[in-house]
């Protein structure tokens, strides 16, 4: 299975999903003109990947802004990971936040409450 890679733009994040290592990276800001259109191929890739790949999966999220649709899609991603976790896979999310930004940490906590697998909020300077 091919890796999935998209360069970061002003309104869309870097997507760097590695099919071999299971390291999935999202970084930047997310407010695409059409979020569902933008994320559809990514979601499809993730679905196929979770069905085929057996090892540990770790999603690294370094997003400073998500619009409402992107937020909804992020929850869909977490759902997919949760389902995979329920089936016994080792799944983890590392969510990176600005140490100074309390609201961003609060937001990360909101995402964390949605799932049961390890979700690490890493504070960065």
């Amino acid at each position, binding site marked *: 299975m091919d890796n999935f890679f998209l360069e970061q733009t002003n309104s869309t994040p870097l997507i760097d999903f590695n099919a071999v290592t299971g390291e999935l990276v999202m970084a930047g800001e997310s407010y695409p003109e059409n979020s569902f259109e933008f994320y559809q191929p990514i979601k499809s890739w993730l679905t196929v990947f979770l069905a085929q790949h057996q090892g540990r999966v770790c999603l690294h999220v370094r997003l400073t802004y998500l619009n409402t649709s992107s937020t909804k899609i992020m*929850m869909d991603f977490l759902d997919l990971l*949760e389902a995979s976790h329920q089936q016994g896979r080792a799944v983890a999310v590392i969510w990176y936040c600005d140490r100074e930004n309390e609201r961003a940490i609060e937001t990360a906590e909101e995402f964390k409450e949605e799932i049961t697998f390890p979700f690490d909020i890493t504070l960065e300077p």
Partner: protein
Amino acid sequence: MVYATDNETLEEMLAQYQELIAHGQERPLSADEAQRLFATFSSLVRRFKRVARVSDKYQEQLKSMLARLDSNLAGATFLSGTLHICAACKKLQTDDGNWKQFEQYISERSGTFFSHGLCPKCAAHVEGSEITAETVPEYLPLQIAEADMEDMVIVRYMHLFTNNFYERSELYQELRDLFARYLHQSRRLRRIARISDNYQIELRKLSEQMTLASRTDSLTGINNRGYFLELLTNEIERSERHGYTFSFAILDFDHFKEVNDTYGHATGDAVLQAFVDVFRECQMRQYDFWGRLGGEEFGLVLPDTPQQLALNPTERIRKCQAESSINYQGHDITVTVSIGISQYVPGDTVETLLQRADQALYTAKREGRNRVCLG
């Protein structure tokens, strides 16, 4: 094809179905009806946003509904005949017309509606294949929190799952699953709204910071040239409209180049920064405004003030500056300012005001600096 999209249509469907049952023409749900049911469910999900807070009145309704349910339950004890329940699967046996009798009794004495469809097991039997659930997470036991009660749909249907009366009904498991999903979606919607609000607040803060930054001179922290000239333009328009006048002053440091050349640019910058403090000490009126025009040049606007009356406050600034100093490696450095003033007359533009104030400033410089001159 038009699908049911609201509760009313759903209830119409139910009524039609009940009629079928009453006439003994019951049949399994057709694909279209099932589709309509699901369309209705989807529309309920879409309506999350519009669900209003639960009012006390509604709670009363709920109570009376429960009371009605209780009385129906009491009535159920008069059901005659024997109901045969399988000891293993706990299902009512349908032979000997037992099921029909039970259904008729319940239908007549309550608002309960019996929907005839295939359960996953029977459907699998009919289709010859196992029905697999789509990959959704397992839901926790249904625990309704206070916040969930904001959702009218939850309030309306939760009683079905908070007692075990319906547990044995055929559709209970599926309905419960549907309800659990609804509950999950309702909570998620509230969470997404909270997250979205957080991001929007961040964005707003950032946008305010950017607006402020775009208006501020980075060295002195006061209005920059662009924003100052914008405010000046507003003042011209205001004065033109109301027939007011105002004074405009250019404040320029004397021999500033020498300060930079002798003590370095950092010292020159420190002189400009210290000037902001001097200006503040001079206690101008709240609606007077100023900005850095560039280099060592500042602009000041005194609204509703003819230039004769502008002399006093500008003289105060000049004097304060002449009496203040900053320390550089043990030396006290004093840098004076010259000030040129122009007064707004109808027809003036930013350019003409700047021009006349510049001329007055030139006069002040020529006459020996450290002074205020009118245009």
